[in-house]
């Protein structure tokens, strides 16, 4: 079945450092979504990418969809303690009613 992979599962950075994480799908996607879950909270939608090569920015966060629509990246510039949490990518192939979530990457930021 379809798989969405996020490696590594944990990353620790010093406040102010940049952070990049990647998401890879075993199949071509129609779109990809990113969610953030704060410690003890629930996943909250951040953004959706649809077009091949698409880049979207939200303040210090930059999201990119790969040209082949099989991978995506999230880049955070100058991390802050408010960036702490788990970031999930979720892909949709268009073939069914389900999003396939990656296992997420948990980011910790040292002040």
């Amino acid at each position: 079945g379809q798989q969405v992979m996020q490696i590594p599962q944990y990353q620790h950075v010093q406040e102010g450092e940049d952070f990049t994480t990647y998401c890879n799908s075993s199949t071509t996607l129609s779109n990809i979504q990113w969610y953030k879950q704060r410690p003890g909270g629930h996943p909250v939608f951040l953004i959706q990418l649809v077009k091949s090569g698409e880049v979207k920015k939200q303040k210090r966060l930059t999201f990119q969809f790969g040209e082949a629509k099989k991978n995506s990246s999230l880049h955070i510039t100058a991390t802050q303690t408010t960036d702490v949490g788990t970031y999930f990518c979720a892909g949709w192939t268009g073939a069914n009613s389900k999003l396939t979530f990656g296992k997420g990457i948990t980011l910790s930021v040292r002040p």
Partner: protein
Amino acid sequence: NAGVTQTPKFRILKIGQSMTLQCTQDMNHNYMYWYRQDPGMGLKLIYYSVGAGITDKGEVPNGYNVSRSTTEDFPLRLELAAPSQTSVYFCASSYSAGVTEQFFGPGTRLTVL
């Protein structure tokens, strides 16, 4: 709008007991989902529904049952609780499948002892 609400927030069950996790959304979404989240394991889909009266199995349906009699409600039933069902359960809803965001409820933290 309250969005997606879940009750209870916390529950401790004994092995073999049963319970129903409630989920309600007030956004008139057709699509609803139940996930479980174990530490470091991401979100696993248990069951989903594409509209009232229509449900289907996800990745890990064993030990659970669902029903969808109304657009708003999507309860998850645990029969004969087992320690392996200790997890955090999230309900989510969306306007359409895959092309719109999923809205998650606050979760139910379940412990089976």
